[in-house]
């Protein structure tokens, strides 16, 4: 329970970049898992993969629900000054938790499109295999590879725009 809750919370946090939303979403994930446990079939991947699929579906639903709110945010995000203001507006414990680079990477991650973001999170943060990502996203393996590839290139470009360059 603790292991799964931690993993699910981390996926939600990396996807949304917000602790409160991540906590609510994680609770929703477990609630849905509890209610739909009967639909789980081990033949369709492991339990952890199934839970990740549920998480992904809820995250996409949440993303679509809050799209209108985010349109204004995305307009603000184009201005570096506003980005800095947002960054400094984080709670002090979050600032302490994340180093400067981690904070920038998290910020860059939330600026990726949801399709690319989820692929990169599952591959590079959750270290899932292509076959597992294929099950979670319900897309062919070629599409998985393509999304991961584009997501990584896009993330590198955003980090460069933010002034984060390889040493």
């Amino acid at each position: 329970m603790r292991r799964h809750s931690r993993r699910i919370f981390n996926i939600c946090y990396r996807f949304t970049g917000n602790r409160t939303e991540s906590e609510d979403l994680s609770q929703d994930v477990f609630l849905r898992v509890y209610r739909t446990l009967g639909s789980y079939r081990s033949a369709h991947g492991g339990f952890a993969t199934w839970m990740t699929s549920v998480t992904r579906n809820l995250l996409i639903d949440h993303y679509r629900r809050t799209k209108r709110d985010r349109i204004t945010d995305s307009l603000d995000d184009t201005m570096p000054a506003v980005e800095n203001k947002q960054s400094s507006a984080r709670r002090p414990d979050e600032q302490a938790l994340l180093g400067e680079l981690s904070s920038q990477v998290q910020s860059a991650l939330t600026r990726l499109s949801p399709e690319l973001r989820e692929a990169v999170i599952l591959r590079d943060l959750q270290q899932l295999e292509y076959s597992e990502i294929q099950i979670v996203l319900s897309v062919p393996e070629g599409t998985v590879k393509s999304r991961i590839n584009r997501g990584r290139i896009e993330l590198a470009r955003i980090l460069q725009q933010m002034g984060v360059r390889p040493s």
Partner: protein
Amino acid sequence: MTWTCEQTELYLTDYLDGLLQPELKQALDLHVNSCERCAPLVSSVTHAITSLRALPEVETPPRFVYNILDATLGPRETVTGWAAVRAWVRGLASPRFAYGSVSVAATFLMLVTVSGFNWKKPRVADLAPANIYRNTSRQMHLAYARSTKYVSDLRVVYEIQSRLRQDNELPTNTEGTAPDSNRQKDPGRTDGTAPATPRQQNRANDINSHLQVLAEELPMLSGKLCVVLTEGRTR
């Protein structure tokens, strides 16, 4: 093989994950080393992946798991008043609690007894740490002294037993070699057996007296010694 910048982007993930075929990897390496556009791309994407994988795992909020349990299984029932007392007492009646209590009590009793606490005349002062330490040390020394005495007593008993055994075997070795003519020279002998020599008789008497003293001194071995004594007398 001619390699384009678009191909670098296309195969970048396979290249970085080590899944690219050797000939394609060689061509990509050759191109990246000479291309001003692709070299920084590979470097920046590698840096992005390294930074992503170095992200720390985020700690969950406090009471996160309990909130999930409340959300899934429902909030836990809180009972107050007599119902709470009854629930607490019911908890005490569980076998696990009973086993735990008994084992703790047995351990406590054992420790207190070992520390020399007198159950017939209990005193609060005996439970003081200094007294417990002193009594425990005394008990340990007493136990050690008893055990060493017991071992030394056993050695004495076994030594006596072995000497008795040797004496019993002695007539057959020494007296058995005596000529039969001596028997006829001994007047008054009617049972037909060879009488013990005075030396033998004295030794047997000494051993019997030793065993009697030991039996009085060591009540715990008296049963064993009685057997030896009766055996000695019958012989």
